[in-house]
């Protein structure tokens, strides 16, 4: 026990959050009785300036040299209170938080049991803080380059923001071109401006920026290091076209005799085996898809090579691996579109003229497979349309969450369909959620255009017309819940407003960057409200739909926020990293080397001369896996030493 310890205990009411459940004066009284406690007091909001000044005053006036704050989770305000210690000249590691809000008051009913638990938590913290030792905070220089993963609108925005400060950005995109889903859209709600028209200038800016190194057709395969200094391995997939030589004339695509379904056209159009996904692709350099190219399949053809004047085709190109050094990472990998095939009652893939929202975007687009003309399978122009909302969203069988933008895209499709054909439009919705700026007004506008709204979930889409004159039509069978009756509506065309879902390879990315995922599968933010941009991994930020479904304005906002966070890190020049690392007492180390093999970071090596193991402080991340295995008790991890934890165990069980 540390006889010199003078402990100050500060219990927060957090308004009624804590004090409404836990008897705070009782906790203070209990704390006062503990050994080495010099002062214990409570305050309404300990994190406020006044609350922190209470801590500072007692450190200065009463000589308090250990601090316990009983308040919210250390994940929220540990840094705040460490600041109070730092400002008073006390090492910030001489603090322990007792989490009596998230893990006590908010979890339990008001009563003596909750107060008793708070007392246990506080006693544990008091016992523990006796053994806290000061730690030197390490300052790590920030490498002023940034990696942005994903070249959709989020990645583009983030890259441009950072580049505008004249710092280097590596923008890595898996596909052959940047632009993401936004490039596939025709018009954007609620203003109906053309998606390509607002995106293309931004994409060209990326291509022209001297600070952005664009790596398309590339994937991040390994990430190591930490904030300030990540080493990233990127695989540049073989394009079979020399980016330096290609002039983007497009002759190869004209001459290539082989076609395949176009991913960019959501599978409803065709592309060549050598292709750029769309005319304004950036970079305007095609790729050869090995799976479609007959030369790779059967060893004959090479038509593209024959006609390529600048001799840019190179069938011998190999995948290339490059290493990048960056200080921060922004993840903007976007979303996948839900495949509605499993909802067999909607007949997607079985019935012609049932489209997903993305397919309809491509049908509407002037650069799409029908050059923007709406056509049925038999070539006729459709005269009626049903738009089915929440396909795969708000559905316990698929995704419980709301995809947030389908109500608005549904309204947009209604408007576009009326504009192009003048036909009838029906919207089958559960609830209309038009929450953004000028969204409600757009909803009213579309209502005024004569679109019919039916509140109800569609039971079935049938290919049998209800009457002989409707025999070529699809019949929507749906309950109109406002009228309380079953309706059968014949239409020519159906759009399924499909859910947004996490990328199929989210788990690989998660493992690569050591992130978390929420229950819905999207990447987990550091705090759902106060920090939706950062992640649990320092120096790694998330933007756009990879964090959860969102529309373009929200995506752009989050991307700019992520860029601002990265620039804040860069502007600081260095970052104080947690001093939580392990160290080995060489007088106790027996040289058994058990710890050497256990360390996941290879941070422990054996000194053959001294016959003891040593920890490389720069590589150690402080998990204490080595400490837990050390039979000699020679290893201790700063802020999580065995003495500290043992004392906490005693405290919580007193």
């Amino acid at each position, binding site marked *: 026990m540390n006889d010199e310890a003078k402990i100050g205990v500060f219990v927060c009411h957090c308004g009624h959050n804590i004090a409404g459940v836990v008897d705070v004066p009782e906790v203070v009284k209990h704390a006062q009785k503990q050994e080495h406690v010099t002062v214990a007091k409570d305050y309404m909001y300990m994190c406020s300036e006044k609350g922190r000044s209470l801590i500072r005053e007692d450190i200065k006036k009463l000589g308090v040299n250990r601090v316990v704050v009983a308040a919210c989770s250390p994940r929220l305000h540990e840094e705040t209170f460490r600041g109070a210690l730092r400002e008073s000249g006390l090492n910030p590691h001489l603090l322990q938080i007792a989490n009596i809000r998230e893990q006590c008051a908010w979890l339990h009913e008001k009563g003596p*049991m909750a107060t008793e638990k708070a007392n246990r938590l506080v006693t544990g913290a008091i016992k523990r803080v006796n053994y806290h030792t000061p730690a030197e905070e390490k300052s790590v220089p920030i490498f002023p380059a940034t990696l942005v993963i994903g070249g959709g609108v989020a990645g583009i925005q983030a890259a441009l923001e950072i580049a505008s400060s004249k710092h280097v950005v590596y923008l890595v995109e898996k596909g052959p071109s940047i632009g993401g889903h936004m490039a596939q859209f025709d018009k954007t709600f609620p203003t109906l401006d053309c998606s390509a028209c607002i995106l293309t200038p931004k994409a060209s800016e990326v291509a022209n920026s001297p600070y952005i190194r664009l790596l398309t057709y590339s994937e991040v395969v390994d990430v190591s290091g930490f904030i300030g200094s990540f080493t990233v391995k990127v695989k540049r997939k073989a394009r079979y076209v020399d980016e330096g030589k290609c002039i983007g004339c497009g002759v190869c695509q004209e001459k290539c005799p082989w076609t395949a379904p176009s991913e960019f056209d959501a599978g409803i159009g065709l592309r060549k085996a050598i292709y750029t996904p769309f005319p304004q692709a950036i970079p305007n350099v095609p790729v050869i898809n090995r799976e479609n190219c007959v030369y790779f399949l059967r060893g004959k053809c090479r038509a593209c090579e024959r006609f390529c004047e600048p001799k840019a085709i190179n069938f011998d190109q190999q995948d290339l691996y490059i290493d990048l050094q960056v200080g921060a990472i922004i993840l903007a990998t976007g979303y996948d579109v839900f495949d509605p095939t499993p909802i067999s009652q909607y007949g997607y893939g079985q019935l012609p003229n049932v489209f997903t929202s993305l397919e309809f975007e491509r049908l509407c687009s002037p650069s799409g497979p029908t050059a923007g003309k709406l056509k049925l399978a038999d070539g006729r122009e459709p005269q009626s349309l049903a738009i089915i909302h929440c396909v795969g969203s708000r559905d316990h069988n698929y995704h419980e969450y709301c995809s947030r933008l389908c109500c608005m895209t549904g309204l947009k499709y209604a408007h576009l369909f009326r504009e192009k054909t003048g036909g009838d439009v029906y919207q089958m919705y559960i609830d209309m959620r038009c929450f953004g700026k000028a969204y409600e007004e757009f909803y009213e506008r579309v209502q005024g255009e004569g679109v019919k709204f039916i509140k109800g979930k569609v039971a079935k889409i049938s290919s049998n017309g209800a009457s002989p004159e409707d025999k070529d039509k699809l019949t929507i069978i749906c309950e109109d819940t406002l009228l309380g009756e079953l309706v059968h509506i014949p239409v020519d065309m159906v759009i399924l407003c499909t859910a947004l879902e996490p990328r199929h390879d989210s788990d690989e990315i998660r493992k690569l960057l050591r992130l978390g995922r929420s229950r819905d599968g999207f990447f987990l933010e550091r705090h759902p409200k106060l920090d939706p941009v950062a992640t649990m991994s320092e120096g790694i930020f998330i933007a756009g739909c990879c964090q959860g479904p969102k529309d373009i304005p929200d995506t752009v906002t989050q991307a700019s926020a992520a860029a601002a966070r990265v620039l804040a890190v860069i502007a600081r020049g260095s970052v104080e990293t947690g001093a*939580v690392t392990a160290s080995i007492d060489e007088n106790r180390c027996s040289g058994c080397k058990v710890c050497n093999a256990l360390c996941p970071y290879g941070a422990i090596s054996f000194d053959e001369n001294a016959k003891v193991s040593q920890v490389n402080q720069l590589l150690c991340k402080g998990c204490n896996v080595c400490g837990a295995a050390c039979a000699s008790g020679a290893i201790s991890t700063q802020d999580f030493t065995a003495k500290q934890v043992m004392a906490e165990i005693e405290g919580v069980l007193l």
Partner: protein
Amino acid sequence: MSFEPKIVAFLCNWCSYAGADLAGTSRMKCAPNVVGIRLMCSGGLEPAYVLKAFKEGADGVLVCGCNLGDCHYTDGNYKTLRRMSLLRKYLDQMGIEEPRARLQWVCASCADDFTEAVDKMTSELKELGPSKIKV
């Protein structure tokens, strides 16, 4: 008054401590018998901590870590898994019954896994009665 077991939970910083916090943030309710102690990684749990808890009068010990494959430190939780099964043999010899030491994976968004484990363990130990270990 009915018996209220005292349970210590060891929570890893990245997943289970965050999951337990989320349970509070989401205002879920669970038995107040479990007091959490934060570790950086469940793999940093020295087996002696579990013994210490029983020595100090705990009726149960709940060890929580990230889901297998999700460890923030790559594979610390696999080490926990192995250590806990080894420790089990020792606890058997000491007469500490199976339900008194439990391993539960709780991810950062799995608040309900945490509250369910807390409630389940609390009610099981109420049934089982106080720990008979006296040191």
